[in-house]
């Protein structure tokens, strides 16, 4: 089995390209998405990305604000209690980004169909609403009959909608812990990460912790993403910041609002990117950008006890450096 640990820069350089279809998303807008991976996509200037998003997050908000999103298929485009996602909203309202609406469950179901190798999945969800009748791809056809076409249940003759399967070119999936081969454990809701890991053609894992494979042997039921579907593993502490990672850190309320405020304008976005995207290259430098005090404060979460059973297998930064050949 191959050691799949690579750096964030290598992961984005190898697994992203202009015009790609990119799947992401964890615990809705406030948790467990690969935000650090998105920062690196912005730093490397990836453009014309087609996003597959169960929900918008600060990652898609940032990439859209930076002008990198051509198209997004999404169930929810806001930031929940943190308000509208200003970067994505601006990109959509200006016509720069095409947004195709589904519901929160629609994207997971379409990924599930993609993972199963089915061309479509039947649905009552999104059916009989403007999610069916409005298509951003064919704005002149209303009510639209191609986005979620009508099908008949061959057994009863009942009408339903058919939602098209999705197989993203690449997915980056944030997990709580992974071993160097890609076996991964997610604490908290998986949301759609399980089916995303099977639907995507290539999978990059972004992990808060790197653990010994013995950990996976102790909790094999919890390893919902096994090594065989994983192409690369990136170790990146605080990788979901400013959103939360269950068991590891809470959301940074101040920075969630600040970041969203900055993404509201082009000038603010440039300033944000200078301060929080271009200002580091290693995980250590990234933690310094957030600030030690802040990291410590956010890392005191009421969910910390969830990590206790796994602690003895967590690799130190020095051990990880050695596993990466000193990089």
């Amino acid at each position, binding site marked *: 089995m191959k050691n799949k640990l690579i750096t964030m820069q290598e992961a984005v350089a190898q697994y992203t390209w202009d015009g790609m279809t990119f799947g992401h998303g964890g*615990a*809705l*807008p*406030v*948790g*467990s998405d690969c935000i650090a991976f998105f920062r690196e996509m912005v730093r490397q200037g990836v453009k014309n990305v087609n996003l597959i998003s169960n929900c918008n997050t600060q990652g898609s908000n940032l990439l859209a604000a930076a002008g990198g999103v051509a198209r997004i298929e*999404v169930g*929810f*485009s*806001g*930031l*929940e*209690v*943190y308000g*509208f*996602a200003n970067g994505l*909203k601006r990109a*959509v*309202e200006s*016509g720069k980004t095409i947004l195709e*609406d589904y*519901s*929160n*469950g629609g994207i*997971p*179901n379409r990924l*599930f169909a993609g993972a199963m190798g089915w061309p479509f999945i039947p649905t*009552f*969800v*999104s*059916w*009989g*609403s*403007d999610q069916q*009748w*409005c298509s*951003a791809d*064919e704005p*002149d056809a*209303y009510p*639209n009959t191609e986005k979620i076409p009508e099908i008949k249940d061959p057994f009863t003759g*009942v*009408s*339903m909608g058919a939602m098209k399967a999705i197989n993203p070119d690449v997915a980056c999936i944030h997990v709580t812990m992974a071993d160097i081969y890609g076996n991964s454990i997610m604490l*908290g*809701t*998986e*949301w*759609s*990460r*399980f089916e995303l890991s099977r639907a995507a053609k290539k999978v990059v894992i972004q992990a808060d912790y790197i653990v010994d494979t013995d950990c996976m042997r102790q909790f094999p039921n919890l390893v919902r993403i096994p090594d065989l579907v994983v192409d690369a593993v990136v170790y990146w502490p605080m990788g979901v910041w400013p959103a*939360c990672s*269950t068991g590891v850190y*809470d*959301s940074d309320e101040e920075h*969630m609002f600040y970041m969203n405020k900055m993404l509201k304008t082009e000038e603010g976005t440039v300033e944000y990117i200078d301060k929080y995207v271009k200002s580091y290259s290693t995980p250590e430098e990234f933690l310094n950008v957030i600030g030690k005090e802040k990291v410590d404060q956010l890392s005191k*979460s*009421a*969910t910390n006890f*969830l990590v206790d059973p796994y602690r003895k297998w967590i690799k130190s930064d020095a051990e990880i450096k050695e596993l990466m050949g000193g990089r």
Partner: protein
Amino acid sequence: MDYSKNEMMAIATGREFSDGELAIFGVGLSMLAGFFAQRNHAPNMIAFTEGGVYGSTPVGGLPWGIEDNRISANATSFTNAIDALGMLVASGRVDNAVIGAAQIDKFGNVNTTGIWTEGTQPWKVGKYTLPKVRLNGSGGANEIAVGAKKYLIMAQHEKKRFADKVDYISSPGYLNGGEDRKKYGFPGGGPSAIVTNLGILRPDPVTKEFILDAYFAFSSVEEIIENTGWDLKVSPNVKMVPEPTEKELENLRAVDETGSLRKK
């Protein structure tokens, strides 16, 4: 007694939940209403999140999102969206739920997707142009609207929000009224009430048009009609909703730790 309009709205919503129900709430206000009900009069109500966080209650304040750490600190099961939002909500197993609305119409159709300039709405011009204001989309509310046995809609009662026909149907209520929902085979039963900061609207059993059922101690039939964008019918049995009891307010405020409903 001293309470805010939003507190009255949350309590009126919470009263619509019965003990033992399987329930799902949206984020923010609706979550407060739901957990208030659980604390106040429905201790055996079972609530879960869209992503399958089961058995938990908020810790440390109102969650910033449906799957925030504040709702993940005392769970008994974590699963996923296909399980929770699909197998339990969209499939028709959930008894009761709450969703929010930016715009709502007389048949309980909800718009949370966008606001169009008058005359450019897709259904009016037969064309899907960009909205003037892009809102957040349906999230999981479409699953609730399609699948829940019944559900409540919470909204701020303003004329521009209470439209004869919504600009965009994000989550279907009774569509064009009457039996229209049946055409689509939805497993769920449709909205049972619209609870606002001014009163409660309920659907006519036959036409499914929402009519005024009750007002609050601080509102009136006239005020509600004035703030409704369609020709609102008034139930012959229109009544005042009982004011919050001390116990209800105490329980609501215990759930609303940060006082978000107290703020104007």
